[in-house]
């Protein structure tokens, strides 16, 4: 590890420590101090670590990103924001890692339901936060979690009490407005027994108030950590779309603890960033159900890594996982999917699938399913493919008058769209589809095809 980097960050930390939320809470001060220490020792993860072997983050180490101490001045174009803000949702907006009350929409929350910024939660419900912060993941996981724990400036706190079924989704919108900054946010989502909720997390690239558009060529760092607690027989769907700017670095980790019979579904759309890594790690209890879906699109020199870990700890749990990647130019996609079936987890039913389409000779997909099975009566399967489009399908379309290039585009788009179609919230579906269309490696893609 580059200790020089850690030292440089440690110095910066002293400068803004007092501005971080919850600094009057001794337990949090201790936690942050420990995290900072852990980060100073480990630094960012190295490719020598098994779970980081395909992803080298030294480019992040070489830069020194600065935390934003407060909400930036200057307004955000409301029109622009609208294209990312869902209607009929509770929306919490974080700009450079700081809560913007002005841009957020948190009216009409049902009584006893908490949807607020992490800073507010630390002030109003410190005990709840203390109980859950660092429980679903620990700084020992890797350097990014430690980094996040030491630095987080704000985030989203959600608590849905037992039996409460939310009729609207909760949307968390991350916006970064400046180059070279780091946005370090921490979320906690608690869904109690029998409750149901949908939470959407969206990361969008640098927004420039002057030019009213996304400035694609600014580098910044997102390091977001979400801890999720799904109670007994509760149901949570989490959507994530990262459409960061072209030169951004993104780390986003979701760490989920599912209770008995709890259902958790994750949809992961990874489109942006020069280097982007997602962790989705879930611990399953007795008869929990866990579904992980993912779509990554890479072009130019993008490196997009998705790391999933499903821990079957108890019997009868079911996990289903499908990740798809489309990679063009010199882009590299990484999929590491670990499924661990503990000795007690008999009758586990687990399926994992990763499919990649390579559109150029220089694109690369590294796919590594890892099944570690310690129980003896289980049903576990996995399949991976890395390949080109099916020639038979191309010919079929051509034989109907479609030119070859369009046929290829249609098939590629249809391949990716299968994951978009799993989104059951209309507004979000359309938003993600728009992003797929603008981010698609190939020109001339048309949503009428679907």
């Amino acid at each position, binding site marked *: 590890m580059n200790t020089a980097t850690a030292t440089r960050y440690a110095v910066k930390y002293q400068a803004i420590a007092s501005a971080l939320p919850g600094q009057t809470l001794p337990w949090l001060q201790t936690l942050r101090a420990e995290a900072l220490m852990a980060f100073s020792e480990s630094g960012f993860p190295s490719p020598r670590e098994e779970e980081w072997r395909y992803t080298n983050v030294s480019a992040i180490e070489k830069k020194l990103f600065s935390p934003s101490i407060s909400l930036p001045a200057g307004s955000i174009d409301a029109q622009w924001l609208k294209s990312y803000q869902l209607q009929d949702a509770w929306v919490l907006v974080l700009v450079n890692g700081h809560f913007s009350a002005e841009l957020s929409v948190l009216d009409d929350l049902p009584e006893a339901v908490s949807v607020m910024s992490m800073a507010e939660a630390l002030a109003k419900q410190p005990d709840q936060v203390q109980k859950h912060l660092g429980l679903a993941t620990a700084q020992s996981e890797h350097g990014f979690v430690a980094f996040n724990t030491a630095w987080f400036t704000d985030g989203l706190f959600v608590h849905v009490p037992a039996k409460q079924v939310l009729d609207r989704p909760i949307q968390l919108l991350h916006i970064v407005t400046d180059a070279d900054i780091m946005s370090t946010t921490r979320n906690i989502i608690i869904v109690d027994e029998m409750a149901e909720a949908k939470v959407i997390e969206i990361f969008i690239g640098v927004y420039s108030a002057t030019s009213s558009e996304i400035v694609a060529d600014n580098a910044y760092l997102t390091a977001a950590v979400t801890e999720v607690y799904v109670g007994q027989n509760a149901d949570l769907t989490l959507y994530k779309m990262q459409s960061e700017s072209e030169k951004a670095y993104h780390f986003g980790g979701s760490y989920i603890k599912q209770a008995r019979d709890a259902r958790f579904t994750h949809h992961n759309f990874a489109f942006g960033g020069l280097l982007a890594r997602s962790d989705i790690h879930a611990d399953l209890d007795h008869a929990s159900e866990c579904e992980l879906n993912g779509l990554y699109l890479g072009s130019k020199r993008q490196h997009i890594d998705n790391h999933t870990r499903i821990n079957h700890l108890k019997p009868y749990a079911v996990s289903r996982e499908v990740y798809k990647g489309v990679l063009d130019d010199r882009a590299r996609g990484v999929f590491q999917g670990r499924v661990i079936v503990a000795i007690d987890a008999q009758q586990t039913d687990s399926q994992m699938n990763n499919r990649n389409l390579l559109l150029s000779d220089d694109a690369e997909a590294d796919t590594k399913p890892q099944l570690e099975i310690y129980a003896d009566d289980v049903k576990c399967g996995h399949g991976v493919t890395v390949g080109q489009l*099916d020639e*038979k399908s191309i*010919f*079929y379309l*051509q*034989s*109907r*008058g479609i030119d070859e290039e369009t046929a290829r585009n249609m098939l590629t788009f249809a391949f990716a769209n299968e994951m978009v179609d799993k989104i059951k919230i209309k507004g979000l579906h359309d938003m993600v589809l728009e992003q797929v269309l603008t981010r698609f490696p190939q020109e001339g893609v048309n949503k009428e*095809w679907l």
Partner: protein
Amino acid sequence: MLSIKDLTVNVNDKQILKGINLEIKPGEIHAIMGPNGSGKSTLSHVLSGKAGYTVTGGSATYQGKDLLEMSPEIRAREGVFLAFQYPVEIPGVSNIYLLKAALNSIRKHNDQPEVDAMDFLTLVKEKVCLLEMDEKFLYRAVNEGFSGGEKKRNEILQMAILEPKLCIMDETDSGLDIDALKIVAEGVNSLRSAERSFVMVTHYQRLLDYIKPDFVHVLAQGRIVKSGGPELALELEEKGYGWVEDNQAAA
């Protein structure tokens, strides 16, 4: 319409078609029968431009043009249609979109404007009705999860909408029960005209009870070993392919 002369075709350096000669005039229906592996699908594929076949000799002239020079999509736009023996499933692309894109590609090729949305819907619904299909099939992904019979019907639906000039049907009748066969035959018969020709590959005389061919050819081991009228199909059904092959050997 189509003139095939001494056509020889290799697949992976193995000769599959060993000199095919076939003259098809506008309005004619030609049935091609023959044992498994004799090259029927190979001939259909070569005519529609599938990759992986090497033409080593001979020619295929379609409406005065060199067919073998054209890309598959140009052949389609020029009016050649292949109803596949094994239609391909295309997950994620809707049936109705493919129909529209196909129709517009042909119209554009012929310097016609894009089809009007309402006219298109009317046309499609009419043909869906003709083939006694459920309209729901239109909004499903192309052939995805269709039964064998449904896929074959979908091929004929496309054919009915695109109104090609040369219809090549590769075993469209295989896997159809008698009711479905009658419906498909009716669809095909409704397309018959003095300008439109058909090449029907089949194993079964039964299809020819419903669509009466002008000529029947027997393809065996890459060659047309016998040609005749509809009565040849009956004779074949009775005596089997061995009979023509034996005759061929004797000659």
